[in-house]
């Protein structure tokens, strides 16, 4: 399992209607969920189970390094500090930052922090047009630049999943972009293989037959 800075909702229930990630238009007009995160399979939702996408729980919390009286770490929301200091659009690298973020690894093109983080509300993200997007809907933000990946994702050809291939028989749960990609360093991490079949011809010769 890959650990990320942002917690994810592991218990996404099939009822969670996550296809409707862009709440803005769909609810007002009563239309079908916005197409961006709709999947290719769900043509007739009446007879089909949902495809749900695991969602991040919400804005990340940063450890202050302090402990409360019960010995629990004190976590702070981003807005705790960021409401009191002006945004700096030039910041692109961890070394440009002080305090909490100086340890972070950034390796995500040449974008700056405020390409994605929302300087008007640090507990949310922002799209390229400046509009606010919640942490839970981070995939909308990723999809702005990673169109081909998103197209493949919508057709089950990018991103892992569990559950049913046949939505007439059961639901499917799909990973979120940030389940596998650290948004600050999105390259898929290296792994160490842990399992090796020992094919017969790889064993030393046996003498007991």
């Amino acid at each position, binding site marked *: 399992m890959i650990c990320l800075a942002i917690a994810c909702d592991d218990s996404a229930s099939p009822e969670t209607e996550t296809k409707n990630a862009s709440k803005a238009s769909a609810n007002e007009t009563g239309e079908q969920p916005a197409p961006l995160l709709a999947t290719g399979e769900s043509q007739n939702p009446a007879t089909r189970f949902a495809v749900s996408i695991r969602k991040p729980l919400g804005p990340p919390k940063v450890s202050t390094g302090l402990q409360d009286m019960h010995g629990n770490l004190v976590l702070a929301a981003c807005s705790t500090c960021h409401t009191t200091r002006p945004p700096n659009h030039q910041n692109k690298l961890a070394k440009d930052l002080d305090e909490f973020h100086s340890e972070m690894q950034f390796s995500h093109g040449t974008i700056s922090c405020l390409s994605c983080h929302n300087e008007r509300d640090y507990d949310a993200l922002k799209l390229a047009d400046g509009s606010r997007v919640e942490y839970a809907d981070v995939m909308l933000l990723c999809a702005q630049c990673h169109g081909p990946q998103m197209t493949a994702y919508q057709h*089950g*050809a990018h991103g892992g999943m569990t559950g049913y291939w046949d939505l007439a028989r059961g639901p499917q749960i799909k990973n979120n972009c940030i389940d*596998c990609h650290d948004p600050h360093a999105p390259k898929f991490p*290296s*792994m160490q293989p*842990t*399992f*090796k079949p*020992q094919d*017969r011809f790889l064993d030393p010769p046996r003498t007991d037959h």
Partner: protein
Amino acid sequence: MTADDNADLHQSSPEPSRLLPILNQPATRRTALKAAGAALGLAAFGKAVSPLWSIPENVSVDEFLQQHYKELSDTDKQKVFARLESETQQKLGVEITISDPPPIPGVRYGYAINLSKCNGNGACMEACNKENNHHRGVQQSYIRVLELPKGTMDMEAGNTTYDHTVPQDDKYYMPVQCQQCDNPPCVTVCPVEATWKEEDGIVVVDYNWCIGCRYCEAACPYHARRFNWEEPEIPSDEINPDQGYLSNRVRPQGTMEKCHFCLHRTREGRLPACLEACPTGARVFGDLNDPESNINWVLQNKRVFVLKEELGTQPSFFYFFDS
């Protein structure tokens, strides 16, 4: 006939002629030796195939008399499954259920792997080992992941025993399992029809009908078949109790097995275990007959290829790279 043979005949002709029962011809030293050889060979052959003539100790009479899967009535099947369930209970102390889900009408399975995504970590092999009750002694799995140098498609250049962090920059990784061929040489060669292709495209084996001749293993161009050299050992607490007669039930020693697209899962609409386990999302599975399926999107939008296309095996298993 050589001069030497003639000499032999001439020498032996004065002796009283004794007839060997099998050969029914005059005995000479040479023919007697030949006959003895034949008899010895027969004896050896008889010993080798003795499991076919007598019931081995570890096989019950019911099992020995069991018909081919396709000839079992529903009642027969219930009996066979109940017998297998109680045998597992006795042998391993585990309660299992044996199911036999039929192909879903109108469905034909296809599977594809994105070689740009696969990083060779092998989680699929491990998931297969657990899901399908494979022999733990040799970490059996229906999948092998080949590590190949970039720039070649030569499977012979592949290595399955790599043991370093993956992916390596100059390598790519190709998982190979049964390709569920539409024209399967493994099925054609089976002398007893113990392996066949089902309507949904899955090539299955009736482990109780298989005689273990391994013709199919030799015929498969993808090294997709596995032979149970030993009685599979699986710790009781690791047995997957959700078992299919034609899929992941514990196989007897001396029988052939192969990937069956997890038919005990997929015929109930679930995804195969190897796909669920893949951490890179390299695997795409679905119904080739459904124009809206994920697998059809891949076939229509990616440049897919099949392994060893020139052999005419017509796999239902596809590979592609991100362009």
